[in-house]
């Protein structure tokens, strides 16, 4: 019996030595999750647009829905808690259409630009962080909003004047009223009216309309100018733009832009289906150039004329993060060093059902929230939200 006791003690000691794994098996439900927001209606289809994290740790998701009420997709908002659980929705699809794909944060308030389905006028929609309906403010009679950006507390809007066939750039306060307006001809004729209208009705190519301002400098828009989908730099004072980076009709051009410093930009471009990523590129903002001359770093894994999201996210150093989706149906994130332009990490999301990127944002816990669209059973378009942990984000960025 003494021997048995001895052996048993030895066994217990050996078990400890061999490292029996009794470690804690708990996880913060907000640090990592995947959520697919499903609707059991056969005809329902959702198009996610952008995501922000609200002060309560939850998320505000902007999207759109196709309905029978309009030719244009209607605005649809979802509020989640910090773990991505659905809290509530606001369906504006009967009253507001064609929301732009950028949630703007001004003075800790959130805004989105959409369009009145009858008057086709742009409206500024205030988004309540709690998910409640906010105010709707007309934007001074501007119609057909195309792309939005931000300059401090001001909103920069690119829109389309169908009657005069003009691209319109305007600067607004949060009261909606324009303080600056300038128009640029897309060229006589109706060649480029059709792709613009198809962009609105989502019946054709979704074009990467953008608007913004260089730090302390020129305004820019990525849109139609002089028969070409171009990146145009303007001071919004003179009739002629200061600089133009021309695309190839509507078959080529800039697909994403992020000013870095001076004339240095992080860019992505498309050209007849091909995609190019340029994390550090010098652009001539005071003359005419062509995106054909900018071509480098082709990314053949991306879908044709890939929609690309581009943001600066702080890692160990500032990182340029590109997001898009691949031919095999995955969301992909690429991180580049802002100073060197070198690739620091790549992350793929999605498996089984096809996934497409809509937007992403860094989160207060050091992680990232990635919003996309997935097709359940290969057919039902639904919004999907991936939350990456701080560790996963660090692996991507560094």
């Amino acid at each position, binding site marked *: 019996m003494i021997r048995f006791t001895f052996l048993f003690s030895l066994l217990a000691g050996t078990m400890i030595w061999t490292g029996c794994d009794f470690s804690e*098996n708990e996880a913060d439900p907000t640090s990592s999750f995947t959520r697919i927001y*499903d609707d059991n*209606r056969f005809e329902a289809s959702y198009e996610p647009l952008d995501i922000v994290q609200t002060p309560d740790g939850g998320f505000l998701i902007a999207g759109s829905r196709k309905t029978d009420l309009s030719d244009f997709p209607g605005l649809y908002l979802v509020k989640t808690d910090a773990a991505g659980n659905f809290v509530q929705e606001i369906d504006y699809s009967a009253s507001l259409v064609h929301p732009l794909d950028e949630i703007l944060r001004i003075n800790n308030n959130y805004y989105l630009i959409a369009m009145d389905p009858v008057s086709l006028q742009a409206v500024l929609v205030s988004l309540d962080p709690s998910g409640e309906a906010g105010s709707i403010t007309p934007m001074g009679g501007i119609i057909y909003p195309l792309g939005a950006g931000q300059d401090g507390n001001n909103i920069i809007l690119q829109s389309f004047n169908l009657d005069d066939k003009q691209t319109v750039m305007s600067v607004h306060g949060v009261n909606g009223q324009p303080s600056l307006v300038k128009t640029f001809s897309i060229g006589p004729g109706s060649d480029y009216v059709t792709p613009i209208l198809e962009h609105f009705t989502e019946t054709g190519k979704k074009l990467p309309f953008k608007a913004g301002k260089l730090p302390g400098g020129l305004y820019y828009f990525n849109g139609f100018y002089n028969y070409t989908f171009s990146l145009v730099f303007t001071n919004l004072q003179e009739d002629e733009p200061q600089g133009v980076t021309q695309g190839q009709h509507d078959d080529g051009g800039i697909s994403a832009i992020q000013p870095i410093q001076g004339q240095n930009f992080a860019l992505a471009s498309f050209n007849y289906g091909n995609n190019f990523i340029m994390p550090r590129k010098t652009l001539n903002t005071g003359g005419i150039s062509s995106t054909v001359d900018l071509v480098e770093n082709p990314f053949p894994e991306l879908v044709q004329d890939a929609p690309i999201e581009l943001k600066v996210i702080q890692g160990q150093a500032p990182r340029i993060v590109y997001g898009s989706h691949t031919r095999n149906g995955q969301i992909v994130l690429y991180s580049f060093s802002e100073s060197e332009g070198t690739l620091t990490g790549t992350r793929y999301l999605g498996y*089984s059902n096809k996934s497409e990127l809509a937007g992403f944002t860094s989160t207060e816990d050091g992680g990232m929230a990635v919003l996309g669209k997935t097709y359940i059973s290969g057919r039902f378009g639904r919004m999907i939200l991936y939350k990456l942990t701080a560790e996963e984000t660090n692996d991507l960025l560094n």
Partner: protein
Amino acid sequence: MKKLLIFCLLVPAIFFAGEVSGQTVRKGKYAQRPDRKSDFLKTQWWLGFYGGGNMAMAVPGQRYSGIQALNYDNSINEKNYEGYSLPGGQAGINITFYHRGFSFTLAPHYRVEKFTYSNTYEWYSDENELNSIQLTYEQSHALQYVELPFLIRYDILAGQFRPFLQAGVYYRHLLNASKTVTTEGVDMASGTSGPFENEPVTTGATDLFVSGATGIIGGAGCTYDIWNVRFVLDVSYRHGLGNIANAENRYSANPLTGIGDAMDDISLNSISVNIGCVFPLRFISKDLKAID
């Protein structure tokens, strides 16, 4: 893992070492004891091997899902667990110390346990109620463990045929896990029933489970002695203690989150049937069999 293998090899070595030394020490004692047979019947060491099959059942605790319902009740998305439906197996060695009707057994072994669950989703048309699609994801899991059970067994009867009861604890270490998803459904969107089934997809799932797990064991069985060999048949129930799903990797390491999959907190129970044989380690000779 390397440590565990060393441990599995070390334990029998410790026992054998103890046995050899015990025999050496006791030579003198037995020389003083004329009734060796009687002493043999009271105390004995046995070594053998065994194998068998098992059926497992996952018992869910806290539920999780990657699907969030916008316009219906989330509870519809809960998984349906099918208990004791997939056969697993185990094989290993048995080291037993017997003393006056009680046996103390270590039985390190390799085992595979399997469990399955399914999710069913349905979509209906607002415009035509006959249009609908039903989709079922059936997900089966195979978990490979090295397990170290420690059992105390009590022989109800003595003799050539010995029924027994046993109880014990186990620690198991996960070696590997895989997950196979079969998608099937009924597409009635064309106005008629069109069943479909996709090819199964198998993915690695080791990171979805914790590497170490414990539980308790209860069971019964019988032995039958022929010459120096004791044949053992037993049935045991294993009750897992604690959650075996890896909470940290619930989403991040699961490639199937894209279809809404997220592991619930689960404990794994199983019923095992084993057959085996053991051999006495002392006094094997023509004159003295293991049991008269």
